[in-house]
């Protein structure tokens, strides 16, 4: 079995040591690889999991994907505690140390540039959820039952009444949407004003996040550490402001959404 090099992040040489016990993917210890005044944080991974063929299968395995993603994030978190890391995408793997050095040398300028730009900044995630208030589901099932039992009260099921009911419900939903959009717009505006930069991400799937309600805003904000307390306070103040709307804050993250180096192969949806 050959050992490959898994690279988590690139950063400046650490002034504080890494936790001695810091473990990465597959439980292997993370270590620093220095090249030209930058370091790559790497660990060894077996090619039984990380060869091209193995990896393709592994990445489709939700349990493996979850464990690996958490291990990756665990290392990034530890680094975020002591420096400003440039996080690489999960499963960036090289044959050996010298291949990692070649990669670092090739991208040295871009790395330095990004590190300068992001130095002392962290990313905060803010999500807005619209809580489910129309507990009536799709509606059709309910209507039909209503119609059948409704032969005793025939008036309720005239087409006109049906339409009126439907319209009222649609109007209520419209109104709720309008409120949530307005709320999201205003919050995003005031948070953007506090942040150096922001990104809007796609809303999350509730099945995976386990979060209740519908995710209508999923944003990331780049904030200097020194101003993070203000930022958090600002978000906290909006919580519980409006019934039916929930605000969630995550962070501080490494500046994942702001490296400016991820675009080169950003996936097109179609």
């Amino acid at each position, binding site marked *: 079995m050959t050992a490959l090099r898994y*690279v988590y992040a690139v950063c400046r040489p650490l002034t504080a040591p890494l936790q001695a016990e810091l473990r990465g993917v597959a439980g292997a210890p993370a270590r620093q690889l220095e090249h030209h005044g930058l370091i790559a944080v790497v660990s060894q991974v077996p090619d039984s999991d990380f060869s091209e063929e193995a990896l393709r299968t592994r*990445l489709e395995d939700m349990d493996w994907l979850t464990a690996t993603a958490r291990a*990756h994030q665990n290392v990034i978190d530890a680094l975020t505690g002591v420096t400003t890391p440039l996080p*690489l995408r999960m499963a960036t793997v090289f044959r050996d140390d010298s291949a990692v050095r070649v990669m670092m040398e090739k991208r040295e300028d871009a790395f330095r540039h990004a590190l300068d730009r992001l130095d002392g900044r962290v990313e905060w995630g803010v999500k807005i959820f619209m809580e489910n208030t129309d507990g009536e589901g799709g509606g059709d099932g309910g209507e039909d039952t209503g119609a059948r039992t409704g032969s005793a009260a025939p008036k309720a099921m005239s087409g006109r009444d049906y339409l009126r009911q439907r319209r009222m419900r649609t109007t209520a939903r419209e109104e709720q949407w309008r409120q949530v959009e307005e709320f999201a717009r205003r919050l995003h505006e005031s948070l953007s004003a506090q942040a150096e930069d922001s990104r809007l991400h796609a809303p999350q799937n509730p099945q995976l996040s386990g979060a209740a309600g519908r995710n209508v805003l999923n944003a990331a904000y780049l904030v200097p550490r020194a101003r993070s307390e203000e930022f958090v306070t600002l978000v906290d103040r909006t919580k519980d402001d409006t019934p039916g709307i929930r605000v969630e804050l995550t962070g501080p*993250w490494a500046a994942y959404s702001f490296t400016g180096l991820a675009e080169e192969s950003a996936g097109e949806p179609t």
Partner: protein
Amino acid sequence: MTTPARLPDPYGAPAAGANLADILERVLDKGIVIAGDIKINLLDIELLTIKLRLVVASVDKAKEMGIDWWEDDPALSSRARRQELRRENAELRARLERLEGGTHGEEQELVEGAAPRTPRREESP
């Protein structure tokens, strides 16, 4: 000191309150993309894993909404909403036809109880 525990102090505790979707979203979708020695077509996997499992509830839902409806600023939902309205309109029209002009199928039983035989006329009390 009243600093909340999750504030960066001095550099910050691990990201608090993050769920799996938050982590996958960043680790898989937002990290710096560098072609390593191990070439995998993450685009394929992204489409399966990220776009379908993480981002949208189902393929049908994605198609219905247009997969990028959320990308336009926080005016997030307008397209999806328009489509929902259009769908609902069509549904209503069909429903109305069945209710007020229906002459066959299960709907007729419903109308029978409610109105005189002549299907076209509006029932009047």
